[in-house]
């Protein structure tokens, strides 16, 4: 039975690969990525083995602890990640619990993350190559570490499965998961600046972590290497106890899952009236605007992109060398982000796009409606960011150049997006998925289309960006105003041309677009 479950997982993986060549390319890419990351980490481990033992212990404990926490909690928020072996699906089969635990546990290791984890944790043995005893301790704690990863992830997902059946919970966590990731980079940079000064504190923190459930298993070899066998045994006991507790929790949750049928979440969202659809003019174009605005506000895939926007000033300010130069780039970058989202608008509609096709809505109305909605979001943000950056840095003299660059980029990317989304449909998260759950195998299609699009965009905005950079570099007011006028004029030209061309493409190809959307669903 255990072998059956592992084989089932392998077959599922194989069948997914058979579905399309993109899936295979996707797997190859994730393997390449994983092996690159793995090689880098192995190099790091090898380097650590040549450093002093305290340093090595600190890094191993922190990195290992992070790995465990990632296994435990990432699957909760990165939904859509892997439900192929959802225990609920085995409810109708008579499988003994012990077999189910082993089977699902081992099957959890099948796949790129599992493989990488097994190899990397085994790689930590390298760190202790100067101390045979510590190496032996690492070898003993290795299976415990791997098991704690897998069992922990199954325990948390199975225990919290009832919560995850609520749409609200999934949507909110799906958006929120990205926020800490955004903060990690500045935090890490800050920490690395502080690390030399406070190395003792860091080591003390590692010492504390190595007594915690997610750190203990990593502290065992370090304790042996430091010549503290009692501490090592104590930490191994904590690690094993953690594993046992997680297995017990998982077994309990599994029992509960198997006898509790999946149920739809009872709560539902109510509004009153038609909202923005009742306010805007009653034409096809404005109906599309209203519908898109509803999606910008209610669909987690759009909300996720918007939720990042307020954080951008802080991120950018962080990399600023102190002259305010980086903050001047804030508005153009944000304008690009917001203008570019609608390049996948039809793909985001998913098969619901049929309504646009059967109603025969004119291409111009479809294109213009999407652009206006994105503009209603993008223009205020761009205004606030251009003026805000000038105010914060006191560089009012650069305002015309920044306005030219920002609005040039916003209008141009909106225009270009209108053409791209009428011609290309690339896989995006499906309706109901989180904004950051990337569909399997989409990497290559995404990259090809987006890179091509970015190249074209780069060429189209070259005049205003060039003028703006020149204006800021030389401090020339004339160049600044030239950038401003160029950006606005060229932007409007590209926008009008883009909506026209996109509309014509749409009218000629709405059935083909529909077929492309169905193909990625």
């Amino acid at each position, binding site marked *: 039975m255990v072998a059956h479950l592992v084989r089932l997982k392998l077959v599922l993986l194989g069948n997914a690969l058979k579905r399309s060549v993109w899936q295979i390319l996707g797997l190859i890419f994730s393997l390449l990525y994983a092996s690159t990351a793995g090689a880098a980490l192995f190099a790091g481990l090898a380097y650590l083995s040549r450093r002093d033992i305290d340093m090595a212990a600190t890094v191993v404990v922190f990195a290992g602890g992070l790995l465990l926490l990632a296994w435990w909690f990432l699957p909760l928020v990165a939904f859509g990640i892997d439900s192929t072996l959802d225990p609920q699906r085995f409810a109708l089969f008579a499988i003994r619990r012990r077999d189910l635990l082993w089977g699902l546990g081992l099957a959890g290791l099948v796949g790129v993350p599992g493989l990488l984890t097994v190899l990397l944790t085994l790689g930590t043995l390298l760190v202790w190559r100067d101390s045979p005893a510590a190496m032996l301790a690492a070898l003993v704690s290795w299976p415990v570490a791997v098991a704690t990863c897998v069992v922990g992830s199954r325990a948390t997902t199975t225990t919290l499965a009832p919560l995850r059946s609520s749409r609200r919970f999934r949507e909110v966590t799906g958006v929120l998961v990205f926020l800490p990731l955004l903060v990690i980079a500045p935090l890490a940079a800050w920490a690395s600046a502080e690390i030399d000064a406070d190395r003792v504190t860091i080591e003390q923190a590692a010492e504390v972590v190595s007594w915690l459930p997610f750190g203990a298993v990593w502290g065992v070899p370090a304790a042996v290497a430091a010549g503290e066998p009692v501490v090592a045994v104590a930490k191994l006991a904590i690690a094993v106890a953690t594993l046992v507790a997680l297995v017990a929790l998982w077994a309990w949750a599994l029992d509960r899952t198997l006898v509790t049928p999946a149920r739809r979440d009872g709560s539902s969202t109510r509004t009153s009236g038609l909202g923005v659809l009742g306010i805007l003019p009653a034409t*096809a174009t404005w109906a599309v605007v209203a519908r898109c605005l509803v999606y910008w506000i209610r669909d987690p895939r759009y909300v996720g992109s918007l939720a990042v926007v307020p954080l951008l000033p802080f991120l950018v300010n962080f990399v600023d060398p102190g002259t305010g130069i980086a903050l001047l780039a804030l508005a153009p970058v944000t304008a690009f982000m917001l203008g570019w989202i609608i390049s996948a608008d039809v793909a985001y509609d998913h098969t619901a796009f*049929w309504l646009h096709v059967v109603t025969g809505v004119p291409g111009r109305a479809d294109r213009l409606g999407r652009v206006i909605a994105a503009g209603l979001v993008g223009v205020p943000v761009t205004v606030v960011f251009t003026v805000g950056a000038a105010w914060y840095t006191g560089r009012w003299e650069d305002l015309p150049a920044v306005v030219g660059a920002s609005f040039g980029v916003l209008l141009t990317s909106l225009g270009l997006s209108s053409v791209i989304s009428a011609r290309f449909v690339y896989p995006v998260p499906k309706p*109901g998925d989180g904004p950051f759950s990337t569909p399997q195998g989409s990497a290559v299609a995404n990259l090809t289309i987006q890179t091509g699009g970015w190249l074209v965009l780069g060429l189209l905005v070259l005049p205003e960006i060039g003028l703006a950079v020149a204006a800021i570099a030389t401090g020339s007011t004339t160049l600044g105003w030239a950038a401003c006028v160029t950006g606005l004029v060229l932007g409007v030209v590209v926008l009008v041309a883009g909506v026209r061309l996109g509309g014509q493409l749409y009218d000629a190809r709405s059935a083909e677009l*529909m077929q492309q959307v169905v193909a990625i669903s």
Partner: protein
Amino acid sequence: MTSADHEATAGAPPALSVRGLFKRFGEKIAVAGISLDVPAGSFYGIVGPNGAGKTTMLSMATGLLRPDGGTVAVDGVDLWTNLFEVKSTLGVLPDGMATFDRLTGAQFVTYAGLLRGMDRATVTARTADLLAALDLRESADKLIVDYSAGMTKKITLAAALIHAPRVLVLDEPFESVDPVSAAHIREILTEYVRTGGTVIVSSHVMDLVQRMCDHVAVVAGGQILAAGTIDEVRAGRSLEDRFVELVGRSHTAEGLAWLRTS
């Protein structure tokens, strides 16, 4: 439908006329040259086993999927060369497609009306009527994502009816709809046909088609096996028996001797 009705519509072009419709997906031929006439004012059933090509055929007949070959005409006007004109006369309920489920039911129906260029007053009045008729008034302000499958079907049907189309093409309209609502939808459709509309429905449920429709086409393997009035097709037997005979039964229950528990 009586024979007098037939004579009255005999001079008019068919509501839907399909000639040599062909579609291939990679290796698989989904629709292998279908020709079919749906008389104006008829209640036309399309039946066929899973994978017969019903949905592909109806998608091509409604402008959702471009055929590799063949023509489609609605009321004598060619669909694929007059997309805008023809689409305005068609009401479509596709099967297996998502909806804009972040809209409320009322928003969705209104959206469909506005996309078709209707004026605000008409859209508002008809949305209210449709929601009432389909028993969705209670859920009008609820997001469609929180609807049941049957409610989603009903709201999509409302969106297909809002512009009072001359021809309705409904792919599996009764799937996962509860019996009370189904009876209700049937009444609405029958009344619509009585007043001159044409309905084309696909279904798995032979009994329903036999009772509800006046014409039927049996589709299998991307081809039409039989088409005509219900009485012509069923030839004195039940539609279900005739269907099984046409499509061919590939196996019998005899092989499962071990399943007998006594």
